[in-house]
């Protein structure tokens, strides 16, 4: 494909999809190891009420209030889950189920009660995003990458998700050691002075920020899939945490690129006329990668001595 077509139409969606996938997969590694994988599920369900409330409060559909609303809802949900779990002595899964379904129901209700017909705000958008539409019309080819006026016309989702990705990488790089130690052995981590409660909360907030920044561009399905599938597949490829992180990045990127390409061109190859949902296809590809890793990954099963009680 020539640069004239590729750069304006495919480069930015590809980059945005890839960055979003990696930004979710990175914290996902720790969430999966901590058996908190479904926090990602909960967060992505409460994004909808968050944006609806933000819309009702501000009356506009601009990006920042929406993102703040979504982030706020994510934090509210995490706090509520924790409160219900502790105060009611309810197991975390059930506490999550209570909170995110209720908040989602509240979101749908508010949406029905509010006149949002004039604006593009609907459940489908929150679910699948609009990756295909994030094109760079000011670009004419590879040379546009050096052209400042063309660069100014980049879809704003791109710098936003890139910045989020940098933030996620920084967080994991700086807190690598405490994250690793407290994920493996929380009691020991406390005795050497790591504030495990605060660190766990920080991890969830970083995950929420990735989720919110990603959902805006690619919808919440990818978010859940990327929190879980690439890290889970990566775990079956290696027994080292560093290598697992690297594999998860590779898998996330591969899902994003192959999913986007298949969604855009797959139907054409099959003779159909229209593209299918890129977000759904990316999630599907991450599932295929996971299936392959689960069937043939070198470290797919538990090994070693049986655990005595």
């Amino acid at each position, binding site marked *: 494909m020539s640069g004239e077509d590729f750069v304006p139409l495919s480069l930015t969606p590809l980059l945005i999809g890839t960055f979003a996938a990696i930004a979710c997969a990175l914290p996902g590694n720790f969430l999966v190891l901590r058996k908190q994988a479904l926090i990602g599920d909960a967060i992505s369900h409460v994004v909808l009420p968050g944006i609806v409330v933000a819309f009702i409060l501000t009356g506009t559909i601009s990006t920042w209030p929406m993102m703040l609303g979504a982030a706020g809802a994510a934090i509210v949900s995490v706090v509520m889950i924790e409160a219900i779990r502790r105060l009611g002595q309810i197991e975390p899964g059930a506490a999550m189920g209570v909170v995110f379904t209720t908040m989602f129901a509240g979101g749908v209700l508010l949406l029905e009660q509010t006149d949002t017909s004039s604006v593009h705000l609907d459940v489908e958008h929150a679910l699948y995003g609009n990756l295909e539409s994030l094109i760079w019309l000011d670009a004419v080819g590879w040379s546009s990458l050096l052209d400042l006026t063309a660069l100014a016309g980049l879809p704003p989702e791109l710098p936003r998700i890139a910045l989020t990705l940098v933030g996620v990488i920084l967080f994991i790089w700086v807190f690598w050691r405490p994250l690793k130690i407290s994920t493996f052995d929380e*009691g020991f981590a406390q*005795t050497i002075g790591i504030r495990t409660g605060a660190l766990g909360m920080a991890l969830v907030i970083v995950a929420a920020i990735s989720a919110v920044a990603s959902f805006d561009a690619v919808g919440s399905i990818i978010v859940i899939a990327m929190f879980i599938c690439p890290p889970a597949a990566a775990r079956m490829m290696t027994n080292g945490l560093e290598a697992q992180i690297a594999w998860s990045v590779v898998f996330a990127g591969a899902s994003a690129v192959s999913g986007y390409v298949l969604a855009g061109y797959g139907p054409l190859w099959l003779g159909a006329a229209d593209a299918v949902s890129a977000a759904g296809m990316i999630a599907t590809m991450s599932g295929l990668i996971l299936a392959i890793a689960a069937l043939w990954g070198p470290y797919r099963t538990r090994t070693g001595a049986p655990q005595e009680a």
Partner: protein
Amino acid sequence: MLELATNQGIPVAEHNVEDSPLAIRGLTVSYGQKPVVFSVDMTVQPGAMTAIIGPNGAGKSTLLKAALGIVAPLSGQVTVFGQPLEQQRARIAYVPQRASVDWDFPTRVIDVVLMGLSRQLGLLGRIRARHMSRAMECLNRVGMRDFADRQIGQLSGGQQQRVFLARALAQDADLYLLDEPFAGVDAATEKAIIAVLKSLKEAGKTVVVVHHDLATVTEYFDHVFLINTRKVAEGPVDTAFTAETLQTAYGGRLATAQIDQISRALA
């Protein structure tokens, strides 16, 4: 030196709280509405090897965890070398129960030992050759040098316990607290662990071990702390570890024959 909990006058320990590596006063911990540890005082003697003994569910591990701030007490105060715990964390090494962690975690033996150096390394400090050699030396002391690159899930129970001990050694602490290190380990591991603990004692360190095997108490330890929700007795083995204190601590749960056997061994 022997003090039974209920007829103590001024506790012997009151004098040396300041230099005790671990002093606990009036500690009560409860899970729900039932106290597991009730109003316990403990004064660990510096340079001693102390066993915390008591029947199952008597609060042995809970006492240790509350002392370390891992579980929140309902009341009570803890000092470490005469100061609040937070200021003295660097001087404590804790070996948790083996079953408390997920051994499927993707990491190698040497990485676990290096966790013991994390206070030195800080957040971003690079692991240098001297850190590696220190970790290898600690592995060597527990006889696990050849396993440095193994995945931790591949170790046997005894080997896992030795790796935990190596991590504690890497911390180079003054007070070592071990929670049931001999539970479910093979004889060779038990021997290796006790040799390391004795060498720590010789180096002037203080060691406290939650222990469940009454038969080895006199052989391994010089001090005991008997607990069954309340403190039962505290002191040197020859005065505090008697048929009478055992009867109080274990009550009906310890067959008379067992107590006879132990008191014969003590005599």
